């Protein structure tokens, strides 16, 4: 007979990638994907966030959603670090195409060239997109 304290269940740690490709506010996907990531952070998993294509607009500074009575969730990205989500990547080509630089973002990010973004995606166990 096994002793539960001595033989803890094996913890599966998977590499999760949350892909953000859509602009905020025009649709709800950015907001609800962020809500999903905050929950996901509570599990002992290897969480990665990628912002590419129009998704890079999600973390643009100075968003003022209150001007149209919209929910202000852009500040919540700043809480990701407190939740232990620190692997946050933006794609260099996506931000350049949109005239942005990393200084435009409300959170610190790791800038990846497109090839490295490809490699990151390829290394994942679970990829969730909205």
């Amino acid at each position, binding site marked *: 007979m096994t002793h539960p304290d001595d033989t803890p269940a094996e913890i599966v740690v998977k590499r999760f990638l949350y892909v953000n490709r859509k602009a905020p506010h*025009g*649709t709800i996907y950015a907001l609800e994907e962020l809500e999903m990531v905050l929950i996901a952070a509570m599990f002992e998993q290897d969480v990665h966030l990628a912002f590419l*294509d129009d998704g890079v607009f999600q973390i643009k500074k100075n*968003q003022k959603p209150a001007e149209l009575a919209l929910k202000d969730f852009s500040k919540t990205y700043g809480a990701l670090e407190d939740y232990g989500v620190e692997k946050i990547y933006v794609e260099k080509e996506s931000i350049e195409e*949109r*005239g942005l630089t990393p200084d435009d973002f409300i959170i610190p990010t790791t800038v990846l060239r497109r090839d490295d973004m490809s490699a990151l995606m390829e290394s994942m166990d679970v990829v969730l997109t909205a």
Partner: protein
Amino acid sequence: MLHLVNKSPFERTNLQACLNRAVPGSAILLMEDAVYASLRGTSQSDLVAGAVNAYDFFVLAPDLAIRGLDASQVLQGVEPVDYGGFVDLTIDRQTVQSWL
């Protein structure tokens, strides 16, 4: 005619579809995610920049503000309007066509 375009030019072809058909002199209002088409210095800026002489371009200013953008970043020839200005455009231009 007032044409309404509300999709990002990086993601969808709606703005090009509108430009392919809008008669010169028409008004085109960029709203919702289409405000990204009004920005200077992007890979899609030429879409609007190449058409400002043919059309009266407007961008919905509150839709810029909620996205962290403002009128100083907008291409020359694109006029920011608020919702009151949007309403006035529907009166001046008679028929409204939404490019959904």
